[in-house]
C-alpha cells in the first residue's frame, strides 16, 4: 500500500508520494508504480519526495529499477528530496542517475524547457 497522487502536466507525469517512509514494506509498490507507468508509455516522470523523511536501500532499489526500465529513453526526475533522503541520494551519487530538483515546478519547468 503506497499513498500517492498523480497529475499529468502536458507530457510530464507527476507522482507525488504521500508517505513519510519509503522502505522495504512499500518499496515493491513503488517499483510496480514506476515500472507500470513507464510500460504504459510515460517517459517524462517527476517523482516528488518532499513528504518523505526516510528512505532505505530497498526504496532506492525501486528507484533504480525505474531508471533501468526507462533505459535512457526518457527521464525519471526526483524533486523535493530533503534531509536524510537527500543525504542518501548524495551518498549514493544518485544525482548522477536522476535529475534532482528542489520542487515539482522547478522540475516541470526544466523538463519542458
Amino acid at each position, binding site marked *: 500500500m503506497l499513498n500517492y497522487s498523480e497529475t499529468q502536466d502536458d507530457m510530464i507525469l507527476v507522482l507525488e508520494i504521500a508517505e513519510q517512509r519509503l522502505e*522495504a514494506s512499500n518499496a515493491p509498490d513503488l517499483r510496480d508504480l514506476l515500472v507500470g507507468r513507464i510500460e504504459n508509455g510515460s517517459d517524462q516522470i517527476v517523482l516528488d519526495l518532499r513528504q518523505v523523511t*526516510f528512505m*532505505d*536501500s*530497498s526504496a*532506492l*532499489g525501486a528507484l*533504480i529499477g525505474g*531508471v*533501468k526500465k526507462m533505459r535512457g529513453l526518457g527521464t525519471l526526475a526526483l524533486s523535493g528530496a530533503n534531509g536524510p533522503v537527500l543525504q542518501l541520494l*548524495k*551518498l*549514493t*551519487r*544518485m544525482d*548522477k*542517475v536522476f535529475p534532482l530538483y528542489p520542487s515539482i515546478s522547478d522540475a516541470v519547468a526544466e523538463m519542458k524547457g
Partner: protein
Amino acid sequence: MNIRNTLAVLFMAFGLTLAALLVPQVLESNRTYTSTNDQIVVDQARNDVFEAVLALRKGRTALTLLAMRGEAGIGLRDDLAAAVMFLNRAAQTFAMSENAVLRQLSDPLAQQADRLSDNAVDFANITALGDAEAIAAALVMQQQLFVEVQHETLLVRQQILQEVGIPDTVMGALQMMRNYILSVSNALNDDLVLAAPNGPDGNRIGLRQVQSSVDRMTTINQFYSDIASAYRPDTIMVALDLAAYLDSTYLPTLNNYVAAVSGNGNLTAAQRDWATTVNDADLLVNQTTARLFAMSQAHLTSEREEARRMLNMMLILTAFVVVMFGLSLYLVTQHIVRPLTYVQLKINDIAAGHLDPIIRKKLLLRDLDTVFDALRALRISSRRREMLTADRLALNEHIVEAHGILRSEVDAAAKVQLSLLPRPERVGHIRFSSLFQPSSVVAGDTYDFINLSDTRVGLFQIDVAGHGAAAGLVSMAAHISARRALRGIKPDINLAQSVQTMNAHWSPELTYFTALFVEFDATSRVARLVQAGHPHPVLMRKDGKVLRIGQGGLPIGVVDGAVFDMIEFDFDYGDRLLVFSDGIYENFNSEGEIYSEERLVQLLQDNASCSTADLVEVIKSSVVSWNKAGVPSDDVSLVIAERI
C-alpha cells in the same frame, strides 16, 4: 411435542369423533329396522285379534238369533272355528315375540281359544241329547261365554295398543279404520238382533233400538267420512266403499224395513231387501278388514325396506369412513412421519459426521421428494467439505514438509554464508574486530578482510538491499566478486579501477548493492578507500578525534560504466576505522524513532577512549536495546580495523 405424538393425538381425536358420530347412527338405523320388523309381526297378531273379535261378535249374533227363533244359526260353526283359529294364531305369534309384555299375552289368548273349543264340544253333546231346556240353558251359557271371550280379547287388543303404540300416522289412521269397522260390525249385529221378528223384547222395542242404531251408524259414518276427507284420504279410502254402501243402500233399506214394520209398505219385500243388504254389508266389512290388513302390512314392509336401506347406507358409509381413516393413517405415518423421522435422523447423522448413503423409498408426496433432494444435497456438500478438509490437511502437511525442506536449505545457505565471514583476527598490521547480527537466517550483509601482500591488507563490506534468502545469495555472489576485486589490485590497477571492473562485470540480472573497499598499506601508513553507496565510515584517531570520511559514490550494479573515486587517508598506529552498513543506524524503536547516524557518531565520540572490545559491546548494547523486540529490522554488521 413432536410430529409423531401430535398426529397420534389428532388421529385419535378425529377417530373418536367419527365413531361418536357414526356408531349412534348405525345403532339407530338398526333399531328402526328391527322395530319395524317387529311391527310387521305385531300387526299380523293385531289383525288376528281383530278378526277374532269380529268373529266372536258374529257368533254372538248367531247364538242370539238361535235362541230367539229356535233355529240353528247357519254361520255359528264357521264363526266359532274362525275365532279359535285367529286366537290361536295370535297366541302363537305373541309366544315367539321378544317383547316380554307381548309374550305374556299369548297364554290368555290361547286360554280363550281353549274355552271356546271346550264349550263347543259340550254344546254339541247337549244338542245331540235333544233336551230342549238343557239346550236353551246351554245357549245362554254359550252366549255368556262369547261375551266374556270377546271382552277378554278386546282387553288384549287394548294392551297391545298400550305396549306397542302407534308407530306412525299411517298406522294411526289404519287403527282408526279398524275401530270404525268394529263399530260398524257392532251396529250391523245389533241391527240383526233387534230387527229380527219375534225378538225377546218384541218388535216395538226392537224397532226403537234399530232406529237409534241407524242414527248411531249415520253419525259414525259421517264422522269417519269427514276424517277421511280431511286426514290421510289415501289410507281411509279403503273404508269409503263400506261407508258409501252403508249410506246409500244399507241405511235406506233398513229405514224402509222399519217403516214396513210400522205398517207402511210391503213388509215381506222390505225384510228380504234388508236381509240382502245385511249380507252385503257384512261381506264389505270382511273385505275392508282384509284390505286394511294388506295396507298395514304393505306400509310396514315399505317402512322396513326403508329402514333396511338406511341401515345399509349407514354401514357402507361407516365402512367408507373406516377405510378412509385407515388410508389417511397409513399415508400420514408411512409417507410423511416415517420419511420425516428418517430425514431428521439423517440430518443428525450428517451433523455428527456420519455420511452413510441416503436410502430413498418411493414417496407419494412431491414436497417430501424436495426435502429428500435437499437432504442429498446436504450430504453431498458435507461429503465435499469433508474431502476438502482432508485435501487441506494433506496440503498443510505438504506445506509443513516443504517449509521444513526450505528451512533446512536456508539453514545450509546460512552456514555457507557464515563460513564466508572471517573470525576477528589480526591480519598483517591490522587487527579486525566485528559485530554481525543478521535480521533473518540469511543476511544481505557480508564482509571480509584478507592479506593482499606482506605490507598490504584488504577489507570490504557489502550490503545487498533487503535481507533473507534472495539477498543472502546475492550477497554471497557479491562477496566473491569483492574478494576478486581486492586481489585484482596490481601495480598498474588501483583499487578504484578494480572496483570499476567489478561493477562492469556485475550481472544486470542481480540486485544492486552498496559496498565499501579499503586497502591498508603498512609501508606508507596510509589507507585507500572506495565508497560505493555505502555509509561514510568513521575514523577514530588515536588522540580520540572522531570523523566521517569519504565522498560517497554509486552503488555497484546501478550504472554500467560508473567511475569510482578513491580517497587516501593517514592510518597510523592506534587509529581505528569503523565500517558499517546502514542497518546499524536505520533502526526504528517502537515509537517509530530512528536510531540515526548522529546518535551513532555521538556514541562513538562519548566512548572514543574505550578499547576496541569495549567499544563493540557499547555499540551492540546501544543498538540492540534501541529496538525493544531485540531484533533489528535490518542486518547489523560492523567491522573495526585497528592499526597495530
